[in-house]
């Protein structure tokens, strides 16, 4: 087979590996990415992004990230981008020994994307830069190419931003995305080196077998490095968060029975799923527990850990607490983006609490998204329709479960709060489960016995 075709096969193999990795081994990293942004099909939103240096790369990255809601689609998009970068690099280095190295920038970007806070805009920035270089190379040398360069450089600056400072490549503004810069630099340096060693490269073309071996070595070594440096622990935590977000209670039970979680988010989600199945108190000590912090942990001021706890608050009927927790989590997103998941929950909590105009505001924003639009359209007619809300299986139940007595509370959930919640609506079996579990975890026999007495009287 012709060498060029074989090279394409390597590219396809590389792409397939990327798809399989993100689709099978890393899907919840993609879900995690998606939940910390809100791509709006709105001119003001687009303008706010593109007016910054690097805005085009950022916008393209955000656009692609919205598809990460479906992990396989996200994996496919990443594979396309990384493969495109490899192909362009290969074109620019013009084969030979340098073909083998053309995979390295894409591998570095894959490495970069192992970090859940690495943003796809960075990958787009590399791709756009390579496209510009390729365009420049393709142009006939002379005044035309130099004129194009003069025009393209400022446009490129606007599209991909200043390479070394302050652009939106990582969710944490203070983090220097070294791997991204290394990939970027290498993608540009390799063609230069290929040009410098052009004669030598032509004279010392590797044999086909050497070329295959070298390519396979690079793919295996880099692939092993990727695998070794993947954070599968974080992936597991993200899986629990994802399952809680999508209320996959059965799947959570199946997962915890395969491998008992021993991290805070996993335990919180495990206990919520058990409680949703009415099995929390019965099976409490069959699983790892983290004291009362595994039930309703104190809310931290970050964007990630509060969300599963907020799900528990929400399901319990502590709707205003859930609302505050979600609001604060969204505010804590480090790059100041908004979140589709949070907007949806804020719309729901405001709807349940009767703040219809605030709910409408969130819903109308979600109408400008690709994947939350249908849900927003279905939910909007509920606003102000008390009868429909009362009949709604989720919102009606949560309204009935809500606190009836007003009292002040702080960040810390107390057993008194759970008692008040349960005794103001004794159909709220979830509150009872949590209250009993609270007593069991703290060893508060008096409260537990008192609770049993009171519940038997009620019955």
């Amino acid at each position, binding site marked *: 087979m012709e060498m060029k075709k074989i090279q394409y096969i390597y590219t396809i193999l590389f792409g397939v590996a990327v798809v399989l990795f993100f689709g099978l081994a890393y899907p919840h990293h993609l879900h995690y990415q998606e939940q910390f942004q809100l791509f709006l099909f*709105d001119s*003001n939103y687009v303008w706010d992004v593109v007016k910054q240096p690097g805005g085009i790369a950022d916008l393209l990255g955000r656009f692609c990230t919205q598809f990460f809601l479906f992990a396989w689609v996200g994996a496919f998009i990443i594979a396309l981008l990384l493969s495109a970068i490899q192909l362009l690099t290969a074109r620019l280095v013009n084969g030979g020994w340098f073909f083998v190295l053309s995979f390295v920038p894409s591998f570095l970007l894959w490495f970069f994307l192992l970090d859940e806070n690495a943003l796809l805009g960075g990958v787009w920035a590399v791709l756009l830069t390579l496209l510009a270089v390729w365009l420049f190379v393709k142009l006939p040398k002379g005044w035309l190419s130099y004129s194009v360069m003069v025009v393209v450089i400022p446009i490129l600056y606007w599209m991909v931003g200043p390479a070394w400072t302050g652009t939106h490549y990582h969710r944490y*503004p203070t983090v220097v995305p070294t791997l991204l810069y290394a990939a970027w630099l290498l993608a540009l340096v390799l063609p230069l080196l290929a040009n410098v060693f052009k004669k030598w490269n032509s004279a010392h073309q590797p044999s086909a077998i050497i070329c295959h071996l070298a390519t396979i070595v690079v793919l295996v070594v880099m692939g092993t490095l990727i695998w070794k440096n993947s954070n599968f622990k974080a992936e597991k935590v993200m899986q629990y968060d994802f399952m809680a977000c999508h209320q996959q209670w059965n799947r959570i039970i199946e997962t915890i029975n395969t491998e008992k979680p021993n991290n805070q988010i996993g335990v919180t989600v495990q206990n919520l799923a058990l409680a949703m199945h009415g099995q929390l108190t019965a099976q409490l000590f069959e699983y790892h527990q983290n004291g009362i912090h595994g039930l309703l942990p104190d809310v931290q*001021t970050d964007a990630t850990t509060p969300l599963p706890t907020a799900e528990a608050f929400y399901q319990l009927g502590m709707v*205003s*607490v859930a609302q*505050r927790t979600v*609001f*604060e989590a*969204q*505010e*804590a*997103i480090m790059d*100041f983006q*908004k979140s589709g998941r949070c907007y949806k929950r804020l719309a729901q909590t405001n709807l349940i609490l009767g*703040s219809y*105009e*605030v709910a*409408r*505001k969130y819903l*109308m*924003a979600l109408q400008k998204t690709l994947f939350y639009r249908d849900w927003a359209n279905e939910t909007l007619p509920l606003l102000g329709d008390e009868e429909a809300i009362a009949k709604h299986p989720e919102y009606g139940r949560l309204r009935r479960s*809500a*606190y*009836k*007595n*007003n*009292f*002040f*509370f*702080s960040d810390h959930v107390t057993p008194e*709060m759970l008692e*008040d919640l349960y005794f103001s609506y004794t159909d709220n079996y979830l509150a009872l489960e949590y209250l009993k579990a609270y007593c069991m975890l703290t060893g508060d026999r008096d409260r537990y016995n008192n609770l049993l007495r009171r519940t038997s009287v009620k019955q």
Partner: protein
Amino acid sequence: MKQILSLYILLLLVCGCTTETVSDAKQEKALPRIYPDYLGVTIPVNVAPLNFNMADEQASLIDAVITDSHGNSLHSQGEESVDFDIDDWHALLGQNKGDSLSVTVSAKYEDGWHTYQPFSIYVSPDSIDYGLCYRLIAPGYEVWSKMGIYERDLSSFEERALIENTQFEGCVNCHSFNRGNPADMSLHIRGPHGATLLRHGDSPLTAYNTKTDQTLGFCVYPYWHPSGRYIAYSTNATSQLFHSAHQNRIEVFDTASDLQVYDVEKNELLLTPLLKQDSLYETYPVFSADGRSLYFCAARALPEGNHQLDSIRYNLCRIDFDPATGTFGNQIETIIDAVAQQKSVSFPRPSYDGRYLCYTLSDYGQFSIWHHEADLYLLDLSTGESRVMTGANSEDTESFHNWSTNSRWLVVSSRRDDGLFTRPYFCHVDAKGVVSKAFMLPQRNPRRFYRERFLSFNVPDFIIAPTRFDGHKASRLINDDYRKNFDLHN
């Protein structure tokens, strides 16, 4: 080919500029329902166009014709909102100072055009200041996302950031000017780079550490003395608790608070035992128009271990202040005994002409921003009588407010729009204290603007000119470790 192309472009331009004639309109007996509600409002002669939308969102076209008594008219038509030409608008207002304009609104629905009864807008000859300065921040609890201080030209729609927290790690709050003059400015930065930025007259912007070993903590709510020499500050130990089942979500309260005055020229804090009593929570200090009184809110402190937040109520109090010597009087006078009415005063703001003092009255506490029942009241300083400012108030929260430098306009923070996001409204207060109906800060397309902005307008204050605040220089100061310390007066 060229000719066809030119014709096509011309056609596009013509189509883009044409307006549909309001024909066969059904004459409605009702007034139009528009957003924002500008019906019967009084506006300053130099305000930006009052563009509006139909409230119901069903209309495919909205048409408005403004006419005056001299035969002039101004027309606008749009799909979402009317958008008056800004120069024509200002010209029309200029010709009608002290007179009323009549606005006829038509809207096109599926069944055709409907024309509503005209409503009037009164153009006050009292102008409003150049602009408004405010903080934009999500109405949250403890964590903040992107936020900053912004200025808005009130005669146009132009908004500019003074400083945003993208430039440093932390948050920015409590901007304050001396009677709208941005040459005298105080601004707090919170977070790891905490500081108070001060500039006075021609002196350069300086970052201060306002915490001393004899005060509760960092200086908080600022208010400039009319001379520009002093700034009154509170120091507050603030906490928050949450409601389980109440229309108000959150209660922000002080567990201790004191007052002090900072002498800008001597770099000294002036203290008095009367304003740092353990048994009292003192907050929101403001100087009177003549600078010889310091008004503030004061509540009896809760005994230790008592968490009955709904029993904390603040009165409006006053103490003498001698600007020549920087000394305080020796007694505190209660100006409004809100406790006797089972109410609580917050945000006192004297008009700069010395006639009135506007304050917020809520059921309890001092952070009335989160109190849906909070309303504005006007105290006549010559008679001592207070009355509710009906024109400025709504069913929802009215809280922070400030006077224009001519003391004829009040900017009011209100949550009437949706119950959560604070918007600025303006009302006119005439020489007799008659308060006009409040109108919302104009925007080019108000519904789109306010719907898409998920931020509250916080601490709105008038400015008489652009602040000329160098945000980059300020961020350099903030990110630098150097802080000049506030000294204590011995």
